[in-house]
């Protein structure tokens, strides 16, 4: 047996062979001949592949470098393995880290680095309209408008998995859906009404955000972070700003972090309220849903009062905030939140007293706990399946370390569990905001930062789960910006959660996770 590198060692505080430059992560390298065996050794336990991406000419190496980002449960340290490639191909790790499959396909599209032994080698974000051999993230491609195909020959169409058998039929849905919703394609294979396979095809909204950010200063690019997903604009802007601040070693004023945290939690509240209302709409109970939508609209209006934007865009800035919040807005928020919890409770009481609703939510769309580490599922979806992970505590950032916060856990992993977890988290967010308002510090809300180059990893807990940002600044501008939102990984959970359910429950299961298409497609 080949000797392997024990990667577990690097998660220990004492095992810091390579000292981290910034943030919670350490960078190590593993000899190529034992690379796959070392990773296979730690797979399937409590080590999770939370990110895998590529870049060129990194850290003194000419050519492609793959960065494997690993997290170990209950350890705060993040281990990043640098894999310098001499040729534009590498061995796949998707067989033992299934979450790598989409990552590897993404790398092949972006850079042309292939994984010859991978079980799925189809295109990911470059659909059939793009020319063959086009790899937009390579440094020799200068970003510009592109002429793409206007028609697609049937032979070059994307190959969905074929399902055959007596009574089996397929239902293609999308990319354009019936409701007001983002585009994506769902290919159901069904027997009678029961789903026995679902294949999801995303990336219809691929906007090339990572490439767009390259060559821009952090100040020019923060609006790109905000546009990753409109309803996670604060979370992504904070993650981006934190990365810049880590690289430039800036200390952010306490007041700025308190306000950021208020905004992050406001975002969580309106996001969860929308999910809950949506779930109730999808079981055809609009009366019950309307209460959640009323509360949500009121939060949107408060966001507007606080920041001038209903989605709180344009306020988070690298180095703090662009503007301070007016005292009257804070007072209004504090006053509003006084009776928020009882109002939410009365909305919940209506739902809980309606057995036909509970009947639809219970035992529907179960996400098994075994999948969580394999697919890197995060956020309320993971917590509702009994995995106590929350980035605000596991890799606490900003002022979260000093806040009183607890992890909300449910065991069953069904739609009802996710509904209940979200309700509890809204109340927790309200408590956090109220506590922060009562102890809001005085002083400035931003600092002037020195210019500086380098790279940093940041992880934030957005409403949907863990968002990963990795930023590399060179000569004051962005050399590479990699984003992996919670939705990117959580989408794959739906393919498993729907199995054995009936087709009419799909919208409900989908809504209970409410994933961002924009945040996945980038």
């Amino acid at each position, binding site marked *: 047996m080949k000797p392997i590198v024990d990667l577990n060692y690097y998660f220990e505080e004492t095992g810091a062979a390579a000292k981290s430059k910034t943030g919670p992560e350490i960078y190590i390298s593993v000899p190529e001949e034992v690379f796959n065996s070392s990773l296979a050794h730690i797979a399937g336990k409590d080590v999770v592949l939370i990110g895998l991406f590529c870049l060129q000419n990194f850290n003194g190496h000419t050519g492609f470098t793959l960065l494997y980002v690993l997290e170990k449960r209950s350890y705060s340290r993040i281990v990043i393995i640098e894999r310098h490639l001499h040729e534009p191909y590498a061995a796949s790790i998707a067989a033992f880290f299934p979450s790598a499959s989409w990552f590897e396909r993404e790398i092949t599209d972006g850079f042309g680095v292939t994984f010859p032994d991978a079980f799925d080698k189809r295109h990911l974000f470059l659909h059939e309209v793009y020319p063959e051999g086009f790899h937009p993230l390579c440094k020799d491609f200068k970003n510009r*408008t592109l002429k793409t195909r206007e028609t697609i020959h049937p032979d070059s169409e994307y190959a969905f998995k074929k399902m055959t058998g007596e009574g089996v039929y397929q239902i293609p849905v999308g990319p354009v859906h019936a*409701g007001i919703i983002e585009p994506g394609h769902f290919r159901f294979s069904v027997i009678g009404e029961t789903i026995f396979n679902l294949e999801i095809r995303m990336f219809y909204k691929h*906007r090339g955000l990572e490439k767009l950010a390259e060559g821009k200063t952090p100040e020019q690019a923060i609006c790109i972070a905000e546009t990753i997903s409109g309803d996670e604009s604060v979370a992504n802007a904070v993650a981006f700003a934190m990365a810049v601040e880590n690289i430039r070693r800036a200390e952010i004023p306490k007041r700025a972090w308190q306000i950021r945290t208020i905004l992050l939690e406001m975002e969580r509240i309106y996001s969860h309220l929308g999910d809950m209302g949506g779930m109730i709409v999808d079981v055809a109970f609009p009366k019950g849903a309307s209460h959640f*939508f009323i509360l949500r609209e009121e939060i949107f209006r408060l966001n507007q009062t606080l920041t001038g934007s209903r989605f709180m865009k344009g306020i988070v800035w690298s180095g703090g905030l662009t503007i301070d919040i007016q005292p009257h807005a804070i007072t209004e928020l504090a006053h509003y939140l006084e009776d928020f919890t009882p109002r939410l409770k009365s909305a919940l009481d209506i739902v809980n007293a309606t057995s036909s609703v509970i009947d639809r939510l219970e035992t529907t769309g179960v996400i098994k706990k075994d999948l969580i580490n394999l697919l890197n599922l995060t956020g309320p979806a993971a917590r509702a399946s009994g995995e106590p992970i929350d980035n605000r505590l596991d890799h606490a950032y900003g002022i979260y370390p000093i806040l009183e916060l607890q992890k909300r856990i449910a065991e069953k992993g069904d739609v009802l569990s996710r509904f209940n977890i979200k309700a509890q988290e809204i109340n927790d967010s309200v408590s956090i905001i109220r506590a922060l308002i009562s102890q809001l510090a005085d002083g400035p809300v931003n600092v002037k930062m020195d210019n500086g180059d380098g790279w940093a990893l940041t992880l934030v807990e957005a409403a949907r789960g863990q968002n990963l940002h990795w930023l590399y600044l060179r000569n004051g501008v962005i050399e590479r910006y990699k984003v992996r939102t919670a939705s990117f990984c959580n989408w794959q959970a739906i393919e498993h959660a729907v199995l054995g359910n009936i087709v009419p429950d799909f919208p409900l299961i989908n809504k209970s996770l409410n994933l*961002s298409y*924009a945040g996945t497609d980038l």
Partner: protein
Amino acid sequence: MQKIFRPFGLFTPKVTGQIIFHDEEYEKLGLQLKDNISSIFGRSLAIRELDSGSDNSTEIEMVNLTTPYYDVERFGITFVASPRHADILAVTGAVTHNMEIAVRKTYAAMPKPKFVIAVGDDACNGGIFAGGTYAVNGGVEKVIPVDLKIPGNPPTPYDILQALHGFMAVLAKGKK
């Protein structure tokens, strides 16, 4: 007095308390819009929403138009499930290459007369993608003809309704 047999909960109607919103300006705008819709579209304006590559905040604001605070259905506006039922196609987001064919097909599926509204900065002129990027074609007008642009990042539900009101006024003039 006659006794009414009433088993628990069975014949008592379930009612929630009336929710009263005081937003007179919005109500006035909505009622004017309703009048215009009545005269131009025969009481019902059918909108098909199409996301061609937005950041999803614009969709959220479109959905918000149907929630209790705004409830545009009472003014005669419905969001329909198929382009075949639609008078107006409301497109959000700059058009990505991956969505371009779907956008053209959706537009082609609409019966005439048909109108296209670009909702949000990205849909209007490409927004942050206007400088040119490999993945995005540009504003909606690069792909299908646009009749009305509603700027904003994203426009608020009130903005959208106000723009529709203005658009109806323009159409009403054309009709006379």
